Structure formats: structure tokens, C-alpha cells
């Protein structure tokens, strides 16, 4: 199971990574594999204020549809438009090309409150 060291994770299987003042959010390798083939990603509206833990996106796979939660509070700054035509990128490249949205964080330090790669690896081990 691929769990890159350069970012933080949530109990709901999102990853979050600081990039140029924005927090990029996607779902983990474990999450994409559990979901199965992704067929549609409903991204949030740019400019929307979101709370930490708020459901902001929906990933539809051939098996189910699951909410994606904002790891930190802030404003949606950008969404991955490319997923509209290529939702399978979430499966193929969950940590880079398959990012979902970027948050302009109310407090960038909130990232520190999320799970470390080691803690997330333990969580995945328990759940799998």
C-alpha cells in the first residue's frame, strides 16, 4: 500500500499536502482501491467556505458513491477540472494527477493536527 511520506492523512482516507500556501486534497491509494473504478467526481464550487470535516465532494465508483471531507477549514481555491473527463485518474494516480481540490486554509497549522503517514499506515492496517 502506497502511503507517501510528504503529506498528512485523515481517518476518512483523504490526504492533504501544503503547496504554495494552498492545501491540496485527494484520496489515498487505500481509498481508491476500496472504491473500485471511479466513474465520476463531483467537485465543490470554487469560493465555497468549508468547515473541517464537512462533506465537499462525492466520488462515484461502479460500486458506490462516497463523500470526501475537507481535512481542514478554509475556502475552496481550485478544483481538478481534468477529472470531469478522466475520473479514472483518481484510481491511476491518486497522489498526483488525481488530486480533487485545493483549500485556502483558514489556518495552515491545522495540517499538523492530521494523521502522520505512520499513524495512517496503522489505521489502514486495522481497517484492511
Amino acid at each position: 500500500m502506497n502511503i507517501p511520506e510528504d503529506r498528512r492523512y485523515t481517518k476518512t482516507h483523504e490526504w492533504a499536502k501544503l503547496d504554495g500556501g494552498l492545501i491540496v486534497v485527494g484520496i489515498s491509494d487505500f481509498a481508491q482501491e476500496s472504491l473500485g473504478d471511479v466513474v465520476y467526481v463531483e467537485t465543490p464550487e470554487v469560493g465555497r467556505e468549508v468547515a473541517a470535516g464537512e462533506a465537499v465532494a462525492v466520488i462515484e465508483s461502479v460500486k458506490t458513491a462516497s463523500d470526501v471531507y475537507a481535512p481542514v477549514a478554509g475556502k475552496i481555491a481550485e478544483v481538478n477540472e481534468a477529472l470531469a473527463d478522466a475520473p479514472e485518474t483518481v484510481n491511476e494516480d491518486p497522489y498526483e494527477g488525481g488530486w480533487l481540490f485545493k483549500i485556502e486554509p483558514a489556518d495552515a497549522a491545522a495540517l499538523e493536527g492530521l494523521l502522520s503517514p505512520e499513524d495512517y499506515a496503522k489505521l489502514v492496517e486495522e481497517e484492511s
Partner: protein
Amino acid sequence: MDFTPHTADDVRTMLAELGMQDLRELYADLPPELLEPQLNLPEPLSEQEVLVHLQELAARNQTAAKSFLGGGVRPHFVPSLVPALAQRGEFLTAYTPYQPEVSQGVLQAIFEYQTMIAELTGLDVSNASLYDGAEALAEGVLLALRQTRRMGVVVSQGVHPEYRQVLATYLHAVGAEMRMVALEGGLTPAAQFDDSVGAVVLQSPNFIGAIENPEPWIAAAHQAGALVVYVADPLSLALLKTPGEWGADVAVGDGQPLGNAMNFGGPHFGYIAVREKLLRQLPGRLVSETRDVDGRRGYVLALAAREQHIRRAKAKSNITTNAQLTALMGAMYLASLGPAGLAEVATTAVVRAHELAAALAEIDGVELATPQPFFNEFALRLPRPADEVRAALAARGWHAAAPVPAEYGENLALFAATERHGGADIDGLRQALAEVLS
């Protein structure tokens, strides 16, 4: 598939598991009078005697085939082809087509229905139908609120008052705010909307029959970032500019005028159509065309992840079914008439309604209360309360003058005409109304 009951062996096995001898022991807690009720029934009759009895009862029915009542439900001629097809077992008894491998016929029929509704409304996509016009309106407004993430709704008073009641019930449950804009001179006045408004609703032809100019409302709504839900009688769309052409985002309405009898006010079917950007918000079933592994055309339920059986509490709607048979009757009706035939039916209805209005407005004390142009319904102001007039006409065998709620004005009554009403019918109603009012 045949129904297979439990065999006597099955029952014995299950009872043994429960440590019981007799099925009666399972029902020991029930009062005996419920288990063996004394039914007050007459003696048995032969089939022939039952038929005679039922024919006697049926002869006491008053037919509403010549109803002039209006209010969105009207008698139209339904070609025999429609009931003949609709009563085929494949349509009449078909259940949810979850398995495309055994449901191609009904799936294709639904797909054709959806296509016709999309064409009629000038919008991109329709679902497999909803229950009736009022419910379709409520779903259309909820859809707009989900999309805009707003909780304000502005509704024209021109929207059918019963639809507004149903809408208010739904909106109360989700905590949305609903405001009404009163008609002025029978038409919806210009309005401004603030950025709390997610949905604006207007109806054309409106409740009292007038054809609205929806352009100012649509422009103001879009200016404010709100979506427009347009309530339209589907028959009127054969002649009038469509909701899609006007720029509306959602079109809803009651399908009764399309191939369905009045059915005592229901069951009918409701239609809903939306722009493609709202597709993911659309409630209920959706059928899509696809190709199988051999490249052959086929039909399947699509985008099911919006729905309750997959998304549970987070589904776009609690709607899990549709008005299958009545909606397919609508599609059969549309297919049997074609666009030109439908326009002919609509034109005839307009002509008859205007003849009727002119004839009735000649009566002393009666005046037309609906501004021109109107479609095939209109309101008259009567010299007496409408419910008295309606009752007196009904006693003479004429079903007309549906009372209009007092919020629209005093002593107003709705009248409608269709291709079912000939010159003799119009003349007969005129005489009856003149007598009742004299």
C-alpha cells in the same frame, strides 16, 4: 414467475424450529375476533348475477367526459391505441427494471418517454417520471436548492395553489423559506431576488389560464444566481415557446393531458426535465442508451448512485419509483399523435376555449377575469359564489365552474375546453349557466 407459497412441509419445519405444533400458536396474542372476523356480506352470487349487479351500479355513475372544470385536469380524447398498448402485460405488470437483461422493452419505452419530454420542454434531460405535477414541482425546487446551496424560494401566485401547498410541505421539512409574489391583473409582476434565493417558480399558462411572459423573472433570477423552475402544461408546449427556449433551468408539470383520463384527479404522472449541468441533481430513475459487448444498442438504468438504494440517506431524493404506466401512456399518446398532431389538439383546445369564453361572457353579470392571451383555461367572475354555481350546474349534468380560491378574488370560477367540446356542448353550457344565474 409463479408465486410459490410455503409447502405444508416448509411450514411444519419452521414450526418445529419454533417448538410449535400449529400455526395458530403463532397468533395466540391476537384477539380471536380478528382471526375469525364476522363479515357482513350478502349471500354468494353467480358470475352472471354479479355482472348484472355491477352494471346496475356502473349505470349510476355520472360521466365527466364533458367536464369543463379545468384546474389542470381536463378530458382529452385518448386514441384507442393507448389503452390497447398500455394494457399489455409487458407494460401493465412490469416491475422495476433493475435487470437490463430481462427488461429491454420497458427500458426502451422509458427512454423514449424521456426523449419526448426533453424535446417537448426544450431541455436536455428528463427522468423516468414522477408521481404528479405538484410532486414534480417540489422535486424541481429541492433540486435547485441543492445546486445553489441556498434556502430561499420565491413562487408566483400564478402557480396552482395546490402545487404551492405541496411545495410548502416539502420546504417546511427541509427548513427552506418560501415567499409568494401576488399576481397583478392576472399576471406575474416583475420581481427582484436577493442572493438568498435559490429557486424561483412560475407557471405558464398560470393557474387562471393566462400565458405569462417569463422573460423578466428568468433574467432577474439568473442575475441573482438563482435557478428557474417553470411549471408548464405539457400540451401548451406544442404551441408555446418552451421552458428551454425561455432560458428556464428546470421544467415540471402534470402529464394528465397527455393520454391519461382524468382519473378523479389522480393517478396522473409528473414530468421533470433539466439542463445537463443539473443532471447529477435529478431525482429518481433515469434510463440511458448504451451498447452491449457485441456493439448492439441497449438500455440500462443510469447514474443510480444518485438514488436511495445506493446513497441511502444522502440520496438526491427519497423518490424510489416513478409513475411508470401513466407516463408510458403519455409517451404512447405523443407517439400516436406526433408533433403536428399534438399541435393540432392544442390549437383546437385554444379555439374551443375562446369560443366558450366569448359565449359565457355574454351572460349578464359574467365577465372574463383572465387577461388575453390565454390557453385553454380561463377564469370568469360570476355574480354569485362559484361553489353554488358549480353545484347548480352539476345538478343539471354540467361539470363546470371550478371555484377559484378567494386569494385570487371574489366569485371566480375556472372553465376549460378541449377538442372534446363541440359547438353543441358550448351552447348547452351557456344555456345552463344563464339559467342558473337568472
